């Protein structure tokens, strides 16, 4: 196969695979979500520790937290950032273990679906608890 036809062949693979994000872009998202998660989780833990640990787990205290809009935004940010970072991490591990187009597609679909499911479930808790 000469160079020109090889380039055409590679181009057609790109065209048929419909690449939405390049791996380098996904890796940047992975790093940004990881660093951002460190900051918001630190805020989450600090807000737990402003009162004695046992008191921070009391029902009324938690409900009061869920009614604080700033804290709600922190919780939602944690939920989204860790879900994206965590499920992309699982995707990376699974793609390292095995490589083929069907496997890659299956792993991508399962991890993105799980990520959306977890974010939806956690957001439901935040919304319902905010209304209690």
């Amino acid at each position, binding site marked *: 196969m000469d160079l020109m036809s090889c380039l055409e062949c590679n181009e057609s693979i790109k065209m048929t695979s419909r690449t939405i994000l390049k791996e380098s872009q996904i890796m940047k998202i992975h790093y940004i979500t990881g660093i951002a998660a460190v900051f918001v989780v630190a805020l989450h833990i600090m807000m737990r520790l402003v009162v004695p640990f046992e008191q921070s787990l009391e*029902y009324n205290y938690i409900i009061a937290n869920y009614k604080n809009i700033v804290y709600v935004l922190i919780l939602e940010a944690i939920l989204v950032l860790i*879900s994206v970072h*965590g499920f992309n991490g*699982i995707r990376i*591990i699974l793609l390292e273990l095995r490589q083929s187009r069907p496997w890659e597609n299956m792993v991508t679909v399962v991890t993105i679906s799980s990520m959306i499911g977890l974010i939806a479930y956690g957001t*439901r*808790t935040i919304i*319902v608890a905010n209304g209690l």
Partner: protein
Amino acid sequence: MKEIERPSRNNLEGIGGWLNPSRYGWERISYWFQRLTGVFLLIYFIGHVYETSTIVNGQNAWDSFLELTQTVWGHLFLIMVIGASTFHSANGIRLIFTHAGIGLGTPGRPDYPYNPASLNYRQKSGIWIALILAAAAMFYGFNVLFGV
């Protein structure tokens, strides 16, 4: 008609090879810990999202779920989570720098005994700092949870 040969997968160790640290060096151990702590933290996070969702079912549901987790074993598990998250964060920051080429040093001619130039004191220090920070965070968590 001759069958098309499937590519051999005899050299594929899969998860078994991944979980076997016996041939690992420093960087590989930290890679292994990064993966293990990442998977462990995701499992914890899913459990934590489920645990906190019980609050929408009222105080009785919340209190009864807390009884399951607020035990000595529950607290020890939380200390593991604190250690894993601290190591994962600190080592992750080292990896981001490494990916950007920071801390790798300059390339050199490979001479006997062929020590990898990339595994220099900066990388080793980063791994040690991650481990020490994890131990310190676990100690702090132990003090808070067990009130020592």
